[in-house]
């Protein structure tokens, strides 16, 4: 019953209309990509929106919260800020707070981080032998916060079938239904 009524729309389309549907699907995908790349330019961060994946910053951030990052070179890193950084050997960037910072005369900085919910600093998380983070490790500084919105992404990453299902449904819906 349902399936027949879904395909009715396709049956009523001619070739030209079907192509139009495919194109509009392409538009959705490419505009999403454009927004992402545009945000990268505006914020200066290589990933301007991140989802919190661990509980190490609780109770400030929980799993699934969304953070908006900026990474302007002229804005100095300071103690107490929440930074997102990458560590060699770890795929996933870490969101933690700056605990200690030393800045040289020529502007080079080295700093140490700690998660609010962790009892020790992050030296154990860094690469072997690494004592400090530098500016190059920083992906961005947390500037904005939105709760729970990233939960969908976490679901998608943890249940690949769910992800495939959602994407398939969306693609199917866009291709099949007329506007």
């Amino acid at each position: 019953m349902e399936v027949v009524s879904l395909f009715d729309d396709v049956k009523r389309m001619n070739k030209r209309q079907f192509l139009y549907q495919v194109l509009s699907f392409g538009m959705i995908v490419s505009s999403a990509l454009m927004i992402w790349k545009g945000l990268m330019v505006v914020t200066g961060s290589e990933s301007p929106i991140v989802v919190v994946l661990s509980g190490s910053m609780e109770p400030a951030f929980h799993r699934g919260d969304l953070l908006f990052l900026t990474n302007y070179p002229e804005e100095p890193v300071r103690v107490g800020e929440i930074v997102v950084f990458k560590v060699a050997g770890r795929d996933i960037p870490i969101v933690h707070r700056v605990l200690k910072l030393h800045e040289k005369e020529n502007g080079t900085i080295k700093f140490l981080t700690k998660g609010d919910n962790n009892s020790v600093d992050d030296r154990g998380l860094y690469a072997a032998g690494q004592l400090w983070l530098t500016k190059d490790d920083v992906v961005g500084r947390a500037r904005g916060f939105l709760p729970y919105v990233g939960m969908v992404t976490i679901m998608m990453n943890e249940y690949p079938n769910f992800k495939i299902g959602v994407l398939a449904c969306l693609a199917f819906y866009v291709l099949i239904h007329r506007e």
Partner: protein
Amino acid sequence: MHSFLQRGNALLAYTLSVLACLTFACFISTVFLNYRTDVDISTVRIVLKNIPDYSASREENDLGFLTFDLQTDLKHLFNWNVKQLFVYLTAEYETPNNKLNQVVLWDKIILREENAKLDFKNINTKYYFWDDGNGLKGNKNITLTLSWNIIPNAGFLPNIFAQGSHSFKFPAEYTTSRI
């Protein structure tokens, strides 16, 4: 609106968009608020040692010990868009090695307005006051400042400096006895 599922879907979508509007209203209503306030900080006891820092370079670095008094009332900072205050005490100073050093000595997470009146007498620091070298000995100007990072329900993550700070100096000699 012709079937059960479509009505449920439309209802859910409308509720979520209303929720987004409400969240935005909450964000807008608090975005221009001034979160600065006065604080009294003073140091009670100051001791300086020079011992190997096994957590970092293993070289002999300056390690300061201090106890401090802290008085402030942050109750009025709480509103319907403040989930948490992350309050931290920073020591900021200059050494021949580094133009700027910032070390967080103490922090506290405040979740409820009832706990936001701080009155501490002679308390120890939470983190070690390690210098990056031997810059604490005889250092004439160490400034203690209190700051807080506001974690909202949704919105910006500002770091606010309190009005009022305390400066002190370290002795010119190391303490060799056990403390």
